[in-house]
């Protein structure tokens, strides 16, 4: 969060309504998202209680474990969940495109991918635990589980992992995406309450959002009062219908909120980088599907040292790229960098379009541009610059003094003696330049897993799914 966001929060308090902190949408929104609201039994690590899910806002599916301590009912619930989620995921595998790659074989990429929408970050964490508790199961041998359960576990694990991946839209928490686009007049801690955040954006703050009788918690934890006064007696009565109806009352309000959140986000125009990031999501999804197809074992409980380092490096690069892309896509995000002096915007007052450097064959076109800006520029001369207006171009800061910045275009000018029309900004044009650039960063050189040095525990033992994993207690 920056001072710009803090100011937006202050304005939100004053106006009694959340304030925009983005001018475009920074996440992909599927045509057919799967809204998934799980509930868990209080006091247990990952005992599912119920879930409301579906791709049609008018036809939610409600799955309930009417007696959560019964292991068979729990697995039957997981099987039912698999019966909804796995066909949804697989429905995206039918249509693919062939992608050519340099130095590698071409691969098939799905044209569209599934999207899991959860209410909050705790819902994502619970999804991960559900995945962990089901992916090692077997459908044969001792304690067999229904078909589809282990596969469900692998997909849930995958979605939870992607939810943590910067810029990925395969699985998202509604509160996080809303908070990325609107600043409410409450604290970030309170923004984790979906009802409260949606109220700030739509109708203004209301104390009802915190009243569990009006807006039950968005899960996965249930309201303790509901547990004591409604759920416990319903379970004691051993009436499956009573339990189901009780849980429906807790889930239906959140279901409506989730679709309201979808509508709010859909009303925003997508940013320019969204399609590109979704393409990476589609590639990742196809890769995961291919792994399952090839019979790879379920995801390990924990990454080995090399795998963990590689994952961290991947996520760091994704985060850096995501930050830069959002700034380039959205002037309001770029404004944060302008405030700190890492970017500036203003009007072109003078240009030298045919400025050249070097002599003879090494003579290069290096147009000069002078920009008048009100922004505090804190970029040292010689720094490379990029601009959202001409993404292919690179520039270099020559000097900055008294609101006038001189820069030199160094990349993307072609080989001609004079610039192509439009390549150099004209006087009077508004431009924005930033030292923030999405330069390609190579992956760090990491050893093969088999060559993990002793400082990091030596080579990890090859992962073999063990029988004990498959029959692990789930109580």
């Amino acid at each position: 969060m920056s001072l710009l966001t803090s100011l937006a929060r202050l304005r939100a308090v004053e106006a009694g309504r959340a304030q925009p902190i983005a001018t475009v949408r920074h996440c992909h929104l599927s045509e057919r998202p799967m809204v998934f609201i799980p509930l868990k039994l209080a006091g247990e690590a990952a005992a599912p209680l119920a879930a409301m899910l579906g791709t049609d806002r008018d036809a939610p599916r409600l799955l309930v474990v009417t007696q959560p301590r019964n292991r068979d009912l729990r697995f039957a619930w997981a099987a039912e969940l698999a019966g909804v989620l796995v066909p949804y995921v697989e429905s995206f595998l039918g249509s693919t495109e062939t992608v050519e790659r340099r130095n590698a074989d071409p691969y098939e990429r799905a044209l569209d991918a599934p999207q899991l929408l959860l209410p909050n970050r705790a819902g994502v964490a619970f999804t991960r635990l559900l995945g962990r508790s089901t992916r090692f199961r077997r459908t044969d041998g001792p304690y067999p589980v229904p078909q589809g359960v282990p596969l469900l576990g692998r997909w849930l694990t995958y979605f939870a992992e992607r939810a943590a991946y910067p810029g990925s839209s395969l699985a998202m928490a509604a509160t996080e995406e809303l908070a990325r686009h609107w600043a409410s007049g409450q604290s970030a801690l309170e923004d984790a309450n979906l009802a409260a955040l949606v109220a700030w954006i739509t109708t203004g703050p209301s104390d009802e959002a915190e009243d569990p009788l009006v807006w039950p918690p968005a899960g996965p934890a249930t309201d303790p009062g509901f547990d004591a006064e409604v759920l416990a007696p319903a379970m004691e009565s051993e009436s499956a219908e009573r339990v189901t109806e009780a849980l429906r009352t807790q889930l239906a309000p959140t279901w409506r909120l989730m679709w309201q959140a979808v509508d709010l986000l859909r009303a925003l125009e997508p940013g320019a980088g969204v399609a590109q990031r979704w393409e990476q999501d589609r590639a990742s999804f196809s890769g995961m599907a291919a792994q399952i197809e090839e019979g790879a074992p379920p995801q390990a409980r924990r990454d080995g040292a090399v795998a963990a380092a590689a994952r961290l490096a991947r996520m760091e690069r994704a985060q850096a790229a995501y930050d830069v892309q959002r700034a380039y896509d959205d002037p309001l995000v770029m404004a944060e960098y302008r405030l700190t002096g890492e970017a500036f915007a203003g009007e072109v007052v003078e240009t030298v379009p045919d400025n050249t450097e070097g002599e003879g064959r090494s003579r290069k076109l290096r147009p000069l541009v002078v920009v008048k800006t009100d922004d505090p520029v804190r970029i040292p001369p010689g720094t490379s610059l990029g601009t959202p207006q001409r993404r292919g171009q690179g520039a270099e800061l020559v000097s900055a003094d008294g609101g006038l910045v001189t820069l030199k275009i160094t990349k993307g000018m072609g080989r001609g003696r004079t610039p192509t029309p439009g390549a150099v900004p004209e006087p009077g044009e508004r431009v924005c330049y930033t030292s923030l650039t999405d330069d390609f960063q190579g992956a760090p050189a990491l050893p093969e897993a088999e060559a993990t040095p002793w400082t990091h525990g030596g080579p990890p033992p090859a992962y073999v799914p063990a029988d004990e994993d498959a029959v692990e207690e789930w109580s």
Partner: protein
Amino acid sequence: MNRLDALRGTTPPKPHDARAIAALAANPGCTRRALMDGAGIDKGAAARHLGFPAPFGQSPFAITRGNAFEALVKADGCAELLRMLRELLGLPIAEVAYHDVENVGAHLRHTHTRALIDRAVREEDAGTVYDHPLFTLEIAGHTAYLEPDVVAFQLGGRFHIVEIKSFAVIDGQADPAAAAAAARQAAVYVLALRGLLEELGHDPLRVSHEVVLVCPENFANRPVATLVDVRRQLAVLRRQLARMTDLDRLIDALPDGLTFDLMPDEDGLPSRPVAELADAVRGAAARYAPDCLSTCDLCFFCRDEARQEGASDLLGRHVRDELGGVASVGEALALADGARAPAEGQEEIARLLRGAERLRRECLT
């Protein structure tokens, strides 16, 4: 009558438990909380009477599960616990003995605990595991009684506090917030036991700063024990308790005659006019932060107060810190609009706010 008692008035004192003491460290800058806790006031009851009941509750399912897990760990004279402790601390098998302090009457438990611990220290190898001991800790001149789950004693002459919690450790990882809370609570017991040893004339450092945390492993009910270093929590706690013994300074700053008395009637129900109590509570300055919402019974009252004052505290410590010395929403916005001249020391934040305002306007119109 000492002045803290006067603050409490006729309301019976609320005993501190380890959870409450651990929570003292959460917001050390809050005068209201320091005074109310120091005086032993039931903040939950006060909040209810003020019309801002605390948002805390525990599900019966969680309570049942917690009790079942503790019973499992302690079943058959802590057999399961002893097995884990042997592995974790290297307790020699022959040394293991089990004392349940609860066997004596409640009023004798503390004396009995003292005697047992004293004997254990003197005779080196007497006794190993103490169930249901009762410790005391001085909080602002009042004695708080504390009941740790278990205390273990091992041959090396070191005591270890054992804390049984029902949150799960999955593939070696537990919920960080739950683990941190457990560590803070265990630190309270370590401090209490160290105090006891000191009173008895023994070396307080014989109580290890490593506590044993027992939690269910993965998705089953099987317990797993882990050593947790609580040195940092101990330091925070000591500082906070030392500060509480020095409440006189805070009391001196209060208006004369101020009391948080709930004036309970014959049925123990508060009878004091709500507006009067609210005024009294406002008489002691709070330092509200959104984190209070998970730790303090009075949180909704203080949040409401912060809203009415338009305090920037409402938006969280991050925003508050970023605004530097600007405490109110209105003041910050006036600085951003240029409607108010910055006071001394506010020039920098005023310049930044005006810049931010200019940029937001430019981007949103």
